């Protein structure tokens, strides 16, 4: 049972799909009320996440960075960790150049109709994508 005590099961679920399901040893995220770290055996918790990267250290030592927007972190008593988020994208999958190009394109479209909710939402998501990609390159 030695391994069971040192790892936890992490699931990342976005509104579009289940992004990640893995065994991990550490998880760090930016909560609304501050940075938090979760280790296996953490007390159950329900935490609202701020926009930003979630860092997951997998059981084999690899690090996974995930861009999260409007997320919720749920830790339950049997060492399960669920990240629920409107948007969750692995940082490695973000193409910075394309995101930048999209930002300029969206800005132009917004000039024509500054109140279009769909464009605004796309804009917001794109900005997060860029932020996370930048954060990932620093980390």
């Amino acid at each position, binding site marked *: 049972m030695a391994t069971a005590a040192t790892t936890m099961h992490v699931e990342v*679920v*976005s*509104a*579009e*799909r*289940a992004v990640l399901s893995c065994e991990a040893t550490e998880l760090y995220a930016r*909560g*609304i*009320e501050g940075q*938090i770290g979760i280790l296996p055996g953490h*007390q*159950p*918790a*329900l*935490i*609202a996440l701020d926009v930003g990267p979630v860092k997951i250290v997998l059981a084999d030592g690899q690090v996974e960075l995930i861009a999260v927007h*409007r997320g*919720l972190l*749920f830790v*339950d*008593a049997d060492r399960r960790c*669920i990240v*629920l988020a*409107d*948007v969750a994208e692995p940082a490695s999958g973000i193409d910075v150049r394309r995101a930048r190009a999209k930002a300029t394109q969206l800005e132009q479209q917004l000039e024509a109709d500054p109140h*279009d*909710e*769909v*464009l*605004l*939402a*796309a804009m*917001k*998501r794109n900005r997060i994508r860029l932020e996370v990609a930048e954060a990932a390159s620093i980390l």
Partner: protein
Amino acid sequence: MAGSGQIRQLRRRIRSVKSTQKITRAMEMIAASRILKAQRRVVAARPYAEQIREVIAGLAIDNEVRQHPLLQVREVNTVAVVVCTSDRGLAGAYNANVLKIAERTIREEESAGRDVRIFVVGRKGAAYFAYRGRRAERAWSGISDAPEVDSAAGVADAVMERYASGEIDRVWLVYTDFRSSLVQAPVRMELLPVKPSEFEGGSRINPEVIFEPSGADLLTRLIPRYVESKVYHGLLESSASEHASRQRAMKSATENASDVAASLSRVMNQARQDQITTEISEIVGGAEALSAG
């Protein structure tokens, strides 16, 4: 009688029917693959919707959900109708069916003396209302083919904002439910106000749980996510239905093209036979006239 001119005309028509058939067959196959993709997205989006509902239901036991602005039930004066249609046609009765339900909803609300505001997704729906001299308060295009979460969030934001500010008092979501690739039913659902009964039956959250921020605050944040996921679901179902409808329409178009081509080539063969017969009898007649002379 059948001259070579007629044969040439028939041949041209057959060629044109066959090339149209190639297009409809291609569209049918594209639609078929898109149905699968859309269905997969419906399934992939399910865990999130379920988890969100579960967490809200759990929180709702110890916190009062009724206070939330999106659950406020008011006297209904203004109603919003959100209609999900497609951007492109050639999808059989898909748009007509969903617009029929929308039209009925609008008529019902108006005859009850309420103001109706229309929010429409898809170019076809926008054109329908524009033609009837109704201005949609918001019309979005380019999102119904393969809906994304942010587009759904945008649509949801538009109505949630107006609901929270008291501008509208009820929101209908009209979309097409994908039951199977043969059956798609247009449906309408009351999106707002959210009914407290939707969050019943949750299991109480373990009292050891740390809430950050407080449970009530979390609830306030989560309810809009829940509404968004419903809109997203409606858009996904609609897009699967659109592709299924198009596949069926294009399948029957392809079959009809086969029938038309077959009956045209029958007519053409007959014309050719007639022409040959005429020619033979002319030759035979000519030869006889020569030998007789």
